[in-house]
């Protein structure tokens, strides 16, 4: 199977680095090419990196609560940059406070994310989702 490539990073002014380092480790272990942009990544940096490396997916982390502000418009910018069908995931603690996850999910789906993950999602879950979306395997 050809090696798919992923862009990962923590969006906005967010510096939560631990989960990011673990995802980097876990996705490589799972056989992916991973470009890790680290923390405090802007929308533009995600897009540039995706174009440059012909990435198959962008996995946005947001932990600190401003995810809803930071993620607005990312799908449009991807479209404008020609990344039309790129897979967009978001996960972490993506809104401020404890909110019913169904509603949160809907808001991010409306923003154009293909999948939205709840707080504390384990790498195994994400890897399974990627397998399904990128290789069509269940």
């Amino acid at each position, binding site marked *: 199977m050809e090696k798919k490539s992923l862009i990962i990073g923590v969006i906005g002014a967010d*510096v939560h680095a631990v989960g990011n380092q673990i995802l980097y480790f876990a996705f490589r272990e799972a056989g992916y090419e991973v470009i890790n942009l680290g*923390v405090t990544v802007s929308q533009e940096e995600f897009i540039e990196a995706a174009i440059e490396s012909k990435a198959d997916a962008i996995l946005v982390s947001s932990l600190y*609560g401003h995810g809803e502000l930071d993620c607005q418009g990312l799908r449009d910018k991807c479209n404008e940059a020609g990344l039309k069908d790129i897979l967009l995931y978001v996960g972490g603690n993506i809104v401020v*406070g*404890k909110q019913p996850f169904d509603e949160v999910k809907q808001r991010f789906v409306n923003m154009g994310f293909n999948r939205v993950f709840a707080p504390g999602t384990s790498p195994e879950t994400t890897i399974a989702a990627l397998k399904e979306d990128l290789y069509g395997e269940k």
Partner: protein
Amino acid sequence: MQLRNKKWSEQEFFDTREEILKTWPTGAEVDLDEAIAYQKAIPEEKRFSAKLNKAVKNKTTLIQPRAGVALIDAHIELLRFLETEGGADLLPSTIDSYTRLNRYSDAEHGIAESLAQGKSMLNGFPGVNHGVKGCRKVTESVKSPVQVRHGTPDARLLCEITLAGGFTSFEGGGISYNIPYAKNVPMEHTMLTWQYVDRLTGLYEERGVSINREPFGPLTGTLVPPSISNAVAVIEALMAAEQGVKNVTVGYGQCGNLIQDVAAIHSLREMTNEYLEKFGYKDCDVSTVLHQWMGGFPQDEAKAFGVICWGSAVAALAKATKVIVKTPHEALGVPTKEANAAGLRATKQVISMLADQELAREKNLNFEIEMINQETRAILDRTLQLGDGDIAVGTVRAFEAGVIDVPFAPSKFNAGKMLPARDNSGAVRFLNIGNLPFSKEIVDFHQGKLKDRGSAEGREVSFQMVVDDIYAISKGQLVGRPAHE
């Protein structure tokens, strides 16, 4: 300006100040003389340092939450609630993440969105945007001392505005608010910006207004070995003292092993006093703070209470001067005021049940204290050496050299070579020593401890252990054991 650990001249300070106050319109509200007069009128019981000094004297442990929302009225309501319903002894104003990165217009947008949506869209209180008047409204509305808590590499304007705004304590430091909180900010820069903060504090102090300063102890909050965070705390205390700060609270984030945690608080107190004395800062009051577990929390609220209460017990048994309290919502998001108050009440119950108990300094505890002392001195002395006797210069070089190395830090100016892991009883040890300046004896001790764990678990000492340890507490353990049948 050239970095060195030397008290700034009036000229240096006021030249910089002029620029700083211009970086956002609310800077114009600050008038130093008026601010000092204002601060002088604040009654003793609303002053951080006075309340801390009293607690040190009586060996009591005070409790303090984290809390901050976008809008002033909601923020006041929140603090009052924590005071009355939570029984908080000390109050915070946790600053939002845009302000922390000086992105005041993003913060303004967040305030507008919060007004529009009727809920806080910011993860904290945007103190700069609300200005001196807004801050005073907050500090005047509560009965307890209020502290600024944040994570701001360049907090000069924030400090100007909040001290003028009646806050009596300011958290942070040139290392502790850079390495865990930024990616691209050079160490020289934050050492200088924080000299400004300390000098400003020193100015208030010289004019008769005591302001407490608190280096941020836990750093990345994730398996930070005590000697690393303690060394950072001592450095920031020395830097502060040089600029005229007279009231310092040094901090430590609970790791989870009782003996090691109590030892860390003792060592922190001892080392801070030892080095302050060594450099001739004789009249600086030192207090300590223990942060309840700062890494990933369990999502379940009952389990979160378990983590919170165990942290409280450790703080009490170590006789830390205060404890920073987590909430049952920790793993999920910024807590509601109810959840925050619940964390406080659980903490208070444990703290007061243990008010008259202390872990005695017997053999095991003394051994751990001695270990941490030795390691801390090794780091500090090499840092001083690297700086040719200047701790500020030495610190920048120590980070370059990996002589100080914080695990899981986002900063590219941190070496990231050291790797921590828990030993078989949950104490945090060095799995990979990196470039830390430790004697063979110390290194052997740590490796031995990890080998013991490896053989207990029947596996090689490896990065997988670290990963398991990172998840452990959120999964209900302390040591991340390998999954078994």
